[in-house]
């Protein structure tokens, strides 16, 4: 089986060209073909000699693969299904808006984190994606040229696959890669503190942290990660990190009816986020099968936002997009997995 070029960093390409017997400058040429031009095979790398292309092709392939299925919402949102590993699948969402287009990529097949509200967690953990498989979700959808933003908020916990996520970020933001501004990229985490610190140190992309309740005891019941990386520690590290003027930290907050939507939650959020320049994204909960959690009504969501705004916390409500196809992240791939098992 041939190895894939797509997803290799310039440093890795330098090692590769050295092993294959190509000149050192070929690494940069290959990276430009991979990340800055549109080709479908190694044969199209025309500034490499015929011999060099043959040498490369003997062991390598380009490594791009198209989605195998898609669902299209009435509002233009699309959900793509990519095959990975053997009979495993990942989901990628394309979300067009008036002034920008966002792709939401997965970083793992399944997830180990076991959050109570998450459909992906019900698959268990199947494996980590390579940087190439992460970037393929961006590069292999038909809309890739129109994309303005990338969010690592699909299946999996990005910081549980830190090395491949960092490689993908390097390729996205380097001048030898896609040359994208890190300010157009957001990586979401449930708060694995050591990995979060490494991410903050080695990338300039925005950080989003899944918060979901300011109370430790409640968070333990929603998110097992709270047992070992408590929110207090995550916030303490964020508070002491210099984010500069442009880099953003935001907190994701899924509202659950009667659980985390009270004025006391607003008060505690205001207390624990004091001193952090941030914003809160409120998210409507899309119920998953057998969940004990419910979504509050619209008026409760609006009121919660207003209370936070009154505390001078910039708060937005994430627009519900693709509701007719969305259901919940992980549903499409879980359904496909179940079909294969049947």
């Amino acid at each position, binding site marked *: 089986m041939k190895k894939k070029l797509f997803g290799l960093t310039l440093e890795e390409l330098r090692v590769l060209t050295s092993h294959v017997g190509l000149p050192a400058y070929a690494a940069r040429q290959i990276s430009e073909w991979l990340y800055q031009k549109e080709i479908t095979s190694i044969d199209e790398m025309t500034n490499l000699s015929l011999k060099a292309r043959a040498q490369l092709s003997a062991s390598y392939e380009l490594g791009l693969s198209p989605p195998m299925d898609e669902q299209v919402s009435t509002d233009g949102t699309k959900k793509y299904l990519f095959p990975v590993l053997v009979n495993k699948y990942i989901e990628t969402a394309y979300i067009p808006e008036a002034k920008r287009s966002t792709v939401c990529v997965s970083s793992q097949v399944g997830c*180990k984190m076991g959050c109570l509200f998450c459909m992906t*967690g*019900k698959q268990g*953990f199947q494996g980590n994606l390579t940087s190439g498989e992460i970037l393929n979700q961006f590069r292999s959808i038909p809309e890739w040229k129109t994309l303005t933003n990338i969010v690592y908020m699909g299946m999996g916990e990005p910081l549980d696959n830190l090395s491949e996520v960092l490689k993908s970020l390097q390729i996205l933001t380097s001048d030898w890669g896609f040359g994208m501004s890190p300010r157009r990229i957001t990586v979401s985490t449930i708060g694995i503190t*050591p990995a979060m610190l490494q991410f903050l140190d080695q990338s300039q992309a925005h950080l989003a942290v899944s918060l979901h309740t300011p109370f430790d005891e409640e968070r333990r019941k929603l998110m*097992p990660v709270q*047992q070992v990386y408590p929110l207090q520690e995550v916030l*303490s590290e964020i508070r002491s990190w210099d984010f500069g003027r442009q880099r953003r930290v935001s907190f994701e907050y899924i509202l659950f009816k009667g659980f985390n939507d009270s004025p006391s939650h607003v008060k505690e959020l205001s207390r624990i986020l004091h001193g952090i320049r941030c914003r809160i994204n409120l998210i409507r909960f899309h119920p998953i099968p057998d969940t004990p959690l419910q979504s509050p009504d619209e008026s409760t969501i609006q009121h919660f936002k207003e209370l936070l705004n009154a505390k001078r916390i910039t708060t937005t409500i994430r627009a519900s997009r693709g509701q007719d196809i969305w259901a919940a992240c992980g549903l499409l791939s879980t359904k496909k997995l179940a079909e294969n098992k049947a």
Partner: protein
Amino acid sequence: MVAGHNHQLQPVTLSFTEELSENIYLIGFERTFKFQAGQVIGIALEEQGPRRLYSLCSGEKEETVKILYNVVDEGYLTPRLSDLEAGDTIWITEPRGEFTGNPGPAVWIATGTGIAPFYSMLRSGLARDKILIHGNRFLEQFHFYDEFEAALADSYTRCCSQEENEEVYLGRVTAYLEELPALNPKLKYYLCGNAEMVVETRDILIQKGIPFDHIISEIYF
């Protein structure tokens, strides 16, 4: 590597290593810190190397700290860890975690090496009024079986999915729970194992009427 103050690694010398059953190891080193039963430590092979979290598998007052782990073939740490011998050095973080034992009645549910925090609780005198359900594939994998049985008697159930004898339930933990006629909704349920087991078990408990806020989970990642 950037690490917060309590993620710093310290070297310790292994005092013993033992393969308890195929691919399941117990290692130990001298205790130089206090911890609560159920807590975890980060382990790395080098000061700058990748670390993983492992539950402590010994009593709070014991002189030797023990770690139980199974070798993950495709993993980075455990295949290398299993090559180490007494006298070798590993790097550890301070203990951390809130999946800790308490004296009240509760149900402990574990699969595989997920038994480690509950063994630590047992060795720390926290087994009274506890019910333990432990799942493994093979009979030889029920380490500490005699100690649990001595402490818990009929409140200890072994679920073995691949081998049978008259003392164990033949099947997975999830199948055993499904077959139980009723569960006590007033008890707290502590789950420890891999993500798939924890999520499946949690769903079953909720379907059987256990409030989700009575379910406390520890997942290996």
